[in-house]
């Protein structure tokens, strides 16, 4: 018996009236786990029963502990007839199975009924006693931690990143079993909820086993989805990245820890390890070791002089290694060789992560994606889900070969999705081909010290833009130029990726959300014919989505897309494509050319005029956008750059024109200039429509920014107010005017209006940024389009921008000056050009610092994942404490200062409801995550047969989503947490039948339950207990307490 589960039912409150006669309820509770059931006494005549039950004990295998949910049913006792169910609570006890997560689940849970929604609450306490089991052949994988977060979780460091894990389980959908015809909707819903819960548990356990096999201890970027295949069954599948994680000691105690002898011991062998990037620098182990432990600045400066891909223009004397431009080939080969050996054992070198430890990502090739159309058939044997496995294996193989074609051996930011309509299913997978640093992948060789990586990343901050493929043998036509940063390596003219912007990337101005939207009608067809029709349409969709993205990117004056997600949805009579990404201007890539319109009939005068009018409009828009997003790239003289390598492009003719200077002129000077303009040929009305639709996208109102990545490039002074929301819209198309254009327009309007509504709703938060904007499109019926958006609005402080940006800068400056002059030089040379983009020119003595700052990643402090960054953070906070005394007083006010929203203590079960924050991001602005409590993965079904009475479809879904939020919050609070990070609504399937007054909705959400502490509270701690280590990492004499 490896585990004992103990459950206690304390009390209920706000129960519904079940007995009309007395207006009261005689409630009791059934507690079920596996096949064992316990019951409480009946608490007569009360809506707030106090059961105070004994501890119900279940003795179970840990395998069951992982698979089964604890099922609590509240019933109304009835002497004469059958007892009526009030509702249920499912509790996933998985978080109790890791040693360092939650120890007890205790709190008020909403009692949920699939027909009536939430009906009161119940207070439950759950504990697990686990016995150690050393059986090697066990089927359970207790202790493997799961994270939805697609980066290394904040209070951990990655020792080894092992790689891709996937699993899928299939079953028959209870909704489609014969028994469903005779049972009540409630019973059917509950069977479904229970089955999916069970399947999720099983899936997680199986993935856990795979991780253990790989000798990992955690899964990061865990993404679980279910496919409702209707008649043919139910598939629950999951992918993730297996890692070995090490918990960083708590922030309060991390300094002594990193100085401990054991740590040093660990680092020494690491430093001696052959290192392809730094092989030329003379090893001086003891010094280095000290450097790592105490002063990150030293390592920075040393590395800046010895890295291969140095940023500075002038070659430095005393530099051991040659420039990467010359060494590029052999170096790349070496790197590839090493990495390949690490990756070769793996079937799929995929990573679901979108943000990485510094230095992990070496080069990025571009987006790779694969789709396939399948016909669903009944799953005959649920125990052998071979067909589905084979389908996915096929797609992954394709992705892998695409990546290879791009000269990459790995795929990062990898994700999979499906779209199902009747018996046709589109499987999609996409990711970003990349070259990775092998040291993270090799087992046992490295003790994975992040500080080492940190130092590497700085010199190579344009490195990820450099092409990984051979320029003479390019896999696709592209324009290459020398990198605008280092001028030694080749970079493409645009870069599309599915990952987040690397923290060390140099970005000019701010980013923005870019969407491509597309609809295509298709004929209704059956089976085989339908699948063929869809397969034929797909390439055209992909192509057009890509073109649209490219046009919009150019229109914004930007040159790279991050977080690209292309969703293709299949319906009865149409296909929808929606691509979202965050556009940015990468300093390393060339300035994008403008958009040039070319007419087909040049002789027609009025037509000409029209064209030139359009051209002017486009140019104006580009100029406006550049201003709006503060894109002021430094002017670089042509000689340095070298000539681009022109290549023909499909559908776009290469014309030589000047891009930025052409803002005012309508007639482009085609004779000189080296950059190409993107040409749109207007040959028919369709194309005209396209151009129009380009121009209809309105920028967000002032004070608003939006992006679909974790953080907004160019904004780094977040304040603590966050508002996560979900918005759903469904429109009905009038079937008369169903042409592609009308459809496109409708879809475009739908998305634009939705965004406008969001801006309006959140106007009280200005200035703010909508982050992680996640659109999902589905086609529930013939003429219905459903768009679901989940995002978080985060406020930021416009005025504080200067102060916050200055702090790290001063530090780096001081650090550099105490040490070495070299560091100071390169940012100066590199970035002083970008100074004008700074909104408030800083005082003279900070001139250099401000300019060097543009190279410091925006929200680095939020994303820090190593102790060394923690030191930096600490240093920063202490400095702040000493310099801006008045501010500290304000900030340092203790937790219970009456500001309820800022309460950081875990909510107490009996007091008023504690605030639980939810965010799709992996961090909480202005706060430190101190503990991960476990994964939240919940599935709910809600059904109604009185749709009108519940306020129609809107009322029904509004209430349901509010209830889902409430249940997530309650579970987090019961685990002792105060926030959910990496929250995602993976599925929201809504079906209605207004004629029958019925509707049904399925929602699947997941996230990581965490405990966070406000940074202001941390600051109090740190300024109270300054350690000598702390001071040493701060600048001299600044620390006063």
């Amino acid at each position: 018996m490896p585990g004992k589960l103990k459950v206690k039912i304390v009390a209920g409150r706000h129960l519904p009236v079940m007995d009309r006669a007395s207006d009261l309820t005689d409630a009791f509770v059934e507690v079920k786990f596996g096949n064992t059931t316990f019951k409480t006494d009946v608490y007569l005549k009360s809506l707030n029963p106090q059961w105070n039950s004994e501890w119900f004990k279940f003795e179970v295998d840990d395998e069951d502990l992982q698979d089964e949910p604890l099922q609590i049913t509240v019933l109304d006792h009835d002497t004469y007839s059958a007892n009526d169910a009030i509702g249920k609570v499912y509790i996933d006890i998985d978080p109790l199975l890791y040693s360092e997560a939650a120890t007890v689940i205790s709190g008020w849970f909403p009692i949920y009924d699939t027909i009536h929604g939430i009906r009161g609450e119940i207070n439950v306490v759950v504990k697990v006693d686990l016995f150690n089991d050393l059986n090697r052949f066990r089927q359970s994988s207790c202790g493997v931690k799961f994270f939805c977060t697609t980066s290394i979780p904040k209070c951990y460091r990655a020792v080894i990143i092992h790689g891709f894990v996937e699993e899928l389980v299939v079953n028959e959908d209870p909704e489609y079993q014969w028994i469903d015809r005779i049972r009540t909707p409630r019973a059917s819903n509950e069977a479904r909820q229970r089955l999916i819960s069970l399947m999720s548990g099983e899936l997680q356990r199986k993935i856990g086993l795979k991780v253990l096999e790989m000798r990992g201890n955690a899964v990061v970027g865990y993404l679980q989805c279910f496919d409702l295949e209707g008649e043919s069954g139910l598939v629950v599948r999951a992918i993730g990245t297996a890692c070995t994680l090490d918990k960083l000691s708590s922030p309060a105690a991390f300094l002594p820890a990193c100085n401990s002898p054991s740590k040093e011991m660990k680092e020494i062998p690491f430093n001696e390890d052959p290192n392809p990037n730094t092989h030329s620098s003379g090893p001086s182990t003891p010094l280095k070791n000290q450097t790592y432990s105490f002063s990150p600045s030293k390592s920075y400066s040393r590395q800046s002089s010895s890295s291969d891909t140095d940023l500075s223009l002038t070659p430095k004397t005393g530099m051991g290694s040659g420039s990467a431009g010359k060494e590029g080939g052999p170096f790349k080969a070496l790197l590839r060789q090493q990495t390949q050996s690490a990756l070769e054992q793996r079937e799929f070198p995929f990573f679901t992560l979108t943000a990485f430890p510094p230095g992990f990502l070496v080069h990025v090739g571009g987006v790779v994606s694969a789709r396939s159309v399948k016909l669903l058939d009944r799953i005959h044997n649920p125990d052998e889900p071979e067909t589905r496995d084979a389908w996915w294996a096929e797609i992954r193989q394709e992705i892998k070969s695409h990546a290879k074609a791009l000269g990459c051996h790995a795929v990062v930011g990898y994700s999979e999705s499906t779209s199902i309509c009747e018996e046709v299913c589109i499987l999609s997978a996409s990711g970003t081909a990349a070259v990775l640093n092998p040291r993270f992948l090799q087992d046992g060789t490295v003790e994975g010290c992040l500080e080492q990586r940190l130092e590497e990343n700085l010199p190579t901050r344009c490195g990820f833009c450099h092409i990984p493929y051979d320029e003479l043998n390019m896999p696709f036509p592209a324009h290459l130029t020398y990198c605008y940063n280092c001028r030694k390596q080749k970079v493409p003219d645009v870069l599309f990726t599915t990952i987040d912007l690397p923290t060390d990337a140099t970005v000019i101005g701010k980013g923005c959300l870019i969407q491509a939207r597309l609809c295509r009608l298709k004929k209704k067809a059956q089976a085989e014919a339908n699948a063929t029709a869809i397969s034929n349409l797909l390439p055209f969709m992909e192509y057009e989505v890509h073109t649209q993205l490219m046009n919009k990117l150019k229109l914004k004056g930007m040159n790279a897309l991050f977080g690209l997600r292309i969703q293709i949805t299949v319906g009865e009579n149409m296909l929808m494509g929606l691509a979202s990404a965050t556009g940015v201007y990468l300093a390393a890539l060339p300035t994008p050319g403008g958009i040039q319109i070319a007419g087909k009939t040049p002789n027609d005068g009025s037509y000409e005029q029209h064209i030139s009018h359009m051209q002017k409009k486009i140019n104006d828009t580009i100029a406006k956008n550049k201003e709006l997003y503060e894109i002021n790239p430094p002017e670089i003289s042509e000689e340095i750059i070298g000539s681009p390598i022109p290549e023909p492009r499909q559908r776009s003719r290469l014309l030589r024109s000047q891009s930025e200077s052409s803002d005012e002129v309508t007639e482009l000077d085609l004779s000189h200039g080296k950059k190409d303009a993107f040409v749109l040929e207007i040959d028919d009305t369709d194309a005209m429509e396209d151009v129009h639709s380009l121009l209809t996208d309105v920028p967000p109102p002032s004070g608003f920014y939006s992006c679909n990545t974790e953080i907004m490039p160019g904004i780094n002074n977040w304040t603590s107010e966050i508002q996560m929301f979900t918005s759903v819209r469904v429109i009905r198309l009038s079937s008369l005017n169903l042409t592609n254009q009308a459809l496109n327009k409708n879809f475009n309007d739908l998305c634009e209006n939705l965004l406008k509504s969001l801006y309006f709703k959140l106007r009280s938060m200005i200035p703010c940024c909508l982050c992680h904007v996640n659109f999902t499109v589905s086609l529930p019926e013939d003429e219905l389009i459903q768009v679901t958006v989940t995002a978080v609005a985060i406020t930021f402080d416009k005025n504080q921008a200067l102060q916050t940006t200055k702090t790290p800068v001063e530090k780096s400056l001081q650090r550099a000056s105490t040490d070495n002059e070299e560091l100071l030089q390169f940012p100066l040379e590199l970035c002083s050009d970008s100074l004008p983009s700074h909104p408030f020119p800083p005082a003279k003595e900070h001139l250099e610092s401000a300019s060097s700052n543009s190279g410091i990643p925006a929200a680095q402090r939020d994303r820090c994942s190593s102790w060394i960054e923690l030191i930096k953070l600490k240093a920063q906070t202490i400095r702040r404490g000493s310099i801006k005394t008045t501010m500290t007083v304000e900030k340092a006010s203790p937790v219970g200062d009456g500001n309820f929203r800022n309460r950081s203590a875990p909510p107490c079960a009996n007091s008023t409801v504690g605030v639980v924050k939810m965010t799709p991001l992996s961090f909480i602005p202005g706060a430190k995550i101190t503990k991960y409590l476990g994964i939240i993965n919940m599935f709910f079904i809600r059904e109604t047969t009185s749709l009108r009475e519940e306020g129609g479809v809107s009322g029904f879904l509004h209430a349901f989503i509010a209830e889902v939020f409430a249940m997530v919050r309650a579970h987090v609070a019961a685990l002792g947490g105060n926030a959910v990070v990496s929250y995602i609504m993976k599925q929201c399937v809504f079906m209605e039948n207004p004629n029958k007054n019925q509707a049904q909705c399925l929602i699947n959400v997941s996230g990581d339950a965490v405990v966070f502490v406000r940074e202001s509270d941390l600051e109090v701690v740190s300024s109270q207990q300054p350690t000598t280590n702390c001071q040493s990492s701060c600048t001299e004499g600044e620390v006063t307490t």
Partner: protein
Amino acid sequence: MTSELDIFVGNTTLIDEDVYRLWLDGYSVTDAVALRVRSGILEQTGATAAVLQSDTMDHYRTFHMLERLLHAPPKLLHQLIFQIPPSRQALLIERYYAFDEAFVREVLGKKLSKGTKKDLDDISTKTGITLKSCRRQMESCSVAQAGVQWRDLSSLQPPPPGFRDYAAIVFFANNRFETGKKKLQYLSFGDFAFCAELMIQNWTLGAVDSQMDDMDMDLDKEFLQDLKELKVLVADKDLLDLHKSLVCTALRGKLGVFSEMEANFKNLSRGLVNVAAKLTHNKDVRDLFVDLVEKFVEPCRSDHWPLSDVRFFLNQYSASVHSLDGFRHQALWDRYMGTLRGCLLRLYHD
């Protein structure tokens, strides 16, 4: 293209104060949108009418869902469905239970059951308050009367500002004071609330026994019974004459309307004392305000007494009783007259 479904759900429930007010005032979505457009919000934010419509609908839906909880405010504090910061919760409750004086003036002293639709219709047309808003206010009155549980709120925050007024409403409703007669129309809700507060402080059980809940809404029955004893002041002719002469001596030369007072003294005194003696019967309690106006306010007004003279007179009138040797119910008189004097002074205006 028609919108089938359009919702926005925030982790923290968004409450727009302006829309909340429009909702409370009972405007339909269309009217609310029109009013918001007029407020110039479109120009300020650059939004379109469609956006405004969607936003308003959404807020209305949220308020509609919240209404169930607002009917029992403690539930709002403990519910898990809507995450609302406490300050916002307080605002919701406070605004929900705020009322229009015009409405309350109409229902004052009436039974606080839901009221028939026709009654509310009448009030709605008379006061210009929307029917929806009337219904809400009627309901909150009955919530206040029935549960009064929501006083637990005081543990969280100071009692809502409208709380005293609710005490008055419930007090009037419990005692079914008549306020609707034509001759009482000149009185405002404020006048009645003032009287109610005085009466709650002095004439209820809670006033004598601090152990009792001080919000006890019933008049002290024993006290009302005892009031019969005051009758001697007018029944005994000698006592009445003595009282009159005491008052007249004291006020001679100080009152602008002395002669009228002297002539009317016996009538006025009889009126005031008889009102007291009649309070034994529930039916007569109901007519308290009618009686006071008929027996005191109107006679004085017809003689054009200035308010200062009324004050002088009432002070002297109650004080002189202490000098009446034959009268033994001084404490009773003070409890009665002290309150009544305050009420009369408030009721005495045009």
